[in-house]
């Protein structure tokens, strides 16, 4: 009876979605669409902006992180279904990583609630975001300006596993760290289960503390520390987030940290945006736009900083400026992707017509 009555309670309350105002629902669907385009196009960074934006909208840190994580969980379910269809998921690697990531997430989550109980969570999470967004943004911008790859290399992701070459760092780790049990992964990679667990724990900790998927750290770690081929790293990372993100969301949900009024509209917009962003990779060279993506992360870092200063000195204007900067930077980059795609398609179409003539 308890299950039925709680289910009825939840349905009766409209899953919390009816509590949200139409303006907020529209904002979340729109923001989800933008975040989805970025995730679909760059293959990362989708969740970077959600938690900071929620913090600036004055949500409790546990709700901002918990709902951010639940959004990541939903996004990962959709992306994993796609990568499963493409045969790019190493289920053995994913299963080994789940334990380490889960413990990491729980330690991160416990830290958020502890910091919240002493009133420091908002400030510390914001500072962590400034460092993270600033660091990753600077790295992506530098790589883009130097003509190197940042984020997922879509061409590498399309290569067959036989063509993949294990990075030197991964080979070195595989030779030196030989603590049993050793496991063989797809692409004939043989590595200690402890290396996998350590990578999983570190990224889980970051995930649980910031409500992000952690793919921007876990994927390079899987590629450079474990030696997993790029397409398998992408698919397995997403598969792993389904479990760890699901459990993390469950734990946050038990503490009232998951708000469906936020997650449902965000996911509704982002699932559509991700399809558009993913389709855009077929017509637009992501290297040309990567510099804007790096710039967007840097603006995000500055925006979170401004928002936090505003909250510290009690200035709603500064908090609003921070929020507009975060959302505005994402909108500009997503619009640049869509605009460039349409221009590329039109150019290709007119060339095709001229050739046919």
């Amino acid at each position: 009876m308890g299950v039925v009555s709680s289910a009825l309670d939840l349905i009766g309350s409209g899953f919390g979605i009816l509590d949200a105002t139409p303006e907020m629902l529209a904002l979340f669907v729109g923001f989800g669409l933008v975040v989805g385009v970025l995730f679909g196009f760059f293959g990362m960074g989708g969740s970077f902006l959600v938690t900071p934006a929620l913090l600036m909208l004055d949500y409790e840190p546990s709700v901002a992180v918990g709902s951010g994580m639940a959004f990541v969980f939903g996004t990962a379910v959709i992306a994993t279904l796609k990568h499963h269809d493409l045969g790019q998921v190493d289920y053995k690697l994913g299963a080994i990583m789940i334990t380490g990531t889960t413990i990491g997430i729980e330690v991160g989550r416990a830290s958020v609630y502890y910091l919240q109980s002493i009133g420091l969570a908002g400030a510390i999470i914001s500072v962590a975001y400034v460092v993270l967004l600033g660091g990753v943004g600077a790295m992506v911008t530098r790589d883009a300006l130097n003509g190197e790859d940042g984020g997922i290399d879509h061409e590498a992701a399309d290569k067959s596993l036989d063509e993949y070459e294990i990075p030197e760092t991964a080979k070195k780790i595989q030779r030196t760290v030989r603590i049993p049990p050793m496991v063989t992964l797809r692409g004939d990679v043989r590595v200690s289960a402890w290396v996998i667990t350590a990578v999983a724990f570190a990224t889980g900790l970051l995930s649980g503390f910031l409500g992000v998927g952690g793919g921007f750290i876990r994927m390079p770690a899987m590629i450079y520390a474990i030696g997993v081929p790029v397409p398998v790293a992408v698919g397995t990372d997403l598969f792993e987030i389904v479990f760890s993100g699901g459990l993390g969301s469950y734990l946050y949900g038990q503490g009232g940290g998951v708000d469906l009024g936020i997650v449902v509209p965000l996911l509704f917009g982002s699932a559509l945006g991700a399809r558009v962003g993913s389709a855009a990779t077929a017509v637009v060279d992501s290297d040309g736009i990567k510099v804007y993506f790096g710039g967007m992360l840097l603006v995000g870092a500055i925006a979170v900083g401004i928002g936090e200063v505003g909250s510290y000195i009690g200035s709603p204007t500064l908090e609003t400026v921070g929020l507009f900067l975060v959302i505005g930077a994402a909108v500009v980059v997503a619009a640049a992707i869509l605009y460039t795609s349409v221009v590329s398609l039109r150019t290709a179409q007119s060339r095709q017509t001229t050739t046919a003539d």
Partner: protein
Amino acid sequence: MSGLEIPTWDPETALLIGTILVEAIVLYVGYAGLERLVAPHLMRLLIGGDGSGQ
């Protein structure tokens, strides 16, 4: 809720997470169908062709 925890069964939270899971699967299937239906018309509208050259 601070301190490390072992997850315990909570039907309301399970329903909450289940709702997100179901929404994700419905959106995956639904948007795939929508893409098949709408994409050719949208391409014609945007570029004046079906973009099959891509």
